[in-house]
Structure formats: structure tokens, C-alpha cells
């Protein structure tokens, strides 16, 4: 039986690896809705988002052994996805020094409130000045570098630190892009407010 002992150990190892791989694939697939939600807003169209998802999962399944069990799998998948997105021709440009935005964080509220004839309306009524379409369009107008952070944090609900890791940028950059991205979004929203 001297030959069968290593073979048994070997086949046990192969079986274990196959089980781990299947478990990994199942977990990754269970997260696909959440990954797609982010992917869809990182790119301009549904088709692009779908291609990106397919490439991401193909790569993830190929390199599953690089994933460290116990770490955030959703962040790991999105790291692959954002890298693929950049590889697809969207080079990460150095941002030119931008003019500071004049508008502060209360800007959108104040603009929307001004369109309502009543004194001191409650915030629900102010929010009704925005349509779903306006939000989709306004988000698409935010420049890529800001939008990536905005989508990861505000839509994907990732922490600053996770967003920094996914995009491979410093934490301070995440914070400044988020801050600015939100203001750009609000300015775009203010332009699309329902005025009737």
C-alpha cells in the first residue's frame, strides 16, 4: 500500500481545493447584485456594466486563490472591476488644479427651497423637487475620478478606507474627491430641479 498513501493524500487535497473553489464562486456570485449596483454607476451604459461584470467574474474565478479568506470579498471584486475599467482605456489622468467650487453644502437645499412659494417648507417637500431621472443624469455628469469615489462610498456604502484600497489612492484623496464630488453632484442636481 506504499503507493496508495500519497495518492490518497493528494486526492484529498484536490477535493478540498475543489470545495474551497466552489465555495468561493458561490460567495462571489451571491454578491453579484451588490457589485453590479456599483458597476452600473461607474460606467455610462448598461452594456458596459455587463461586460465589465463578466470580465470581472471571469478574472475573479481564475485568480480566486489570491483572495484572502476572511477579508472583504465585495471590496476584492470591486478592486478587480475598477482596475479592468481603467485598463479599458480610461487612463487615470492627473487632475488639473480645479477652481474651488463656490457652492457650499447647503447650496442645493437653498436653491430648491427657493422654488417653493411657501414659507419654510419641510425637507420632504424640498426633496420632491428632484426626480429620479435628474439624479441619474446628474450623477453621470460628475467627472470619473470624483464619481468613482462617490459611487463607492455613497452608493456602495464602502468606508473611506475601503474606497482608498479599491481605487489604490490615498485616504486623503478619497476624502477630498468625495467632498468635491458631492458638491459637483449637487450643482448638477440644482440645474435639473423641477421648477413647475
Amino acid at each position: 500500500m506504499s503507493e496508495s498513501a500519497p495518492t490518497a493524500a493528494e486526492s484529498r487535497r484536490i477535493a478540498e481545493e475543489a470545495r474551497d473553489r466552489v465555495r468561493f464562486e458561490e460567495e462571489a456570485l451571491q454578491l453579484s447584485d451588490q457589485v453590479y449596483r456599483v458597476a452600473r454607476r461607474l460606467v455610462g451604459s448598461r452594456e458596459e456594466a455587463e461586460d465589465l461584470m463578466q470580465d470581472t467574474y471571469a478574472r475573479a474565478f481564475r485568480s480566486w486563490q489570491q483572495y484572502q479568506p476572511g477579508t472583504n470579498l465585495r471590496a476584492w471584486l470591486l478592486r478587480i472591476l475598477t482596475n479592468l475599467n481603467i485598463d479599458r482605456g480610461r487612463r487615470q489622468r492627473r487632475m488639473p488644479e480645479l477652481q474651488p467650487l463656490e457652492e457650499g453644502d447647503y447650496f442645493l437645499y437653498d436653491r430648491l427651497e427657493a422654488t417653493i412659494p411657501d414659507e419654510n417648507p419641510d425637507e420632504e417637500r424640498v426633496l420632491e423637487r428632484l426626480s429620479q431621472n435628474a439624479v441619474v443624469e446628474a450623477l453621470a455628469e460628475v467627472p470619473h475620478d470624483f464619481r468613482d469615489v462617490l459611487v463607492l462610498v455613497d452608493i456602495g456604502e464602502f468606508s473611506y478606507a475601503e474606497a482608498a484600497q479599491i481605487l489604490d489612492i490615498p485616504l486623503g484623496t478619497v476624502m477630498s474627491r468625495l467632498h468635491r464630488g458631492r458638491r459637483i453632484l449637487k450643482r448638477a442636481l440644482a440645474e435639473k430641479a423641477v421648477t413647475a
Partner: protein
Amino acid sequence: MGCGCSDCEEMMQPYMDKVLTEEQVREAQEHLARCPGCEKRYRFEYKLRMFVRVAVDEPMAPELRARLAGLRSPAPPH
């Protein structure tokens, strides 16, 4: 125009993101308790974030789900 509380305006994003120190949170809350204008703008900001999240949500097509599932490795032979 708001109440002119520019410190409160500056603190709004970090407050929402829960990255303020305990003391800063207390400061912000004390101010909000005294200033209905800022308080309403904070509530608006919170609801706006929820609204944005829901507004841009587009469910994944079932065909894509099936395609992703099709990328799995073949089941190991027994």
C-alpha cells in the same frame, strides 16, 4: 438663505459620514438643537443620500446573472 452657520455647514458631510470625534459630534448636536435651519438641512442631506441611492439603483438583468453563473468552474468529477 440659511442661518449663516458656516461651521455647521462644514461639519455636515463628516457628521453624516461618522468621522467626527466625539467632541465634534457633541458640538454639532448642540448647535443643531439650537438651530432649526441647520437641523432641517441636515435632515434633507440624509434623505437626499437615501434618495440618490434608490434613484440610481438598476437591478441586474437575469441574463447577466445566468452568464456569471456560467463562468464557474466545471464541477469536479467524482
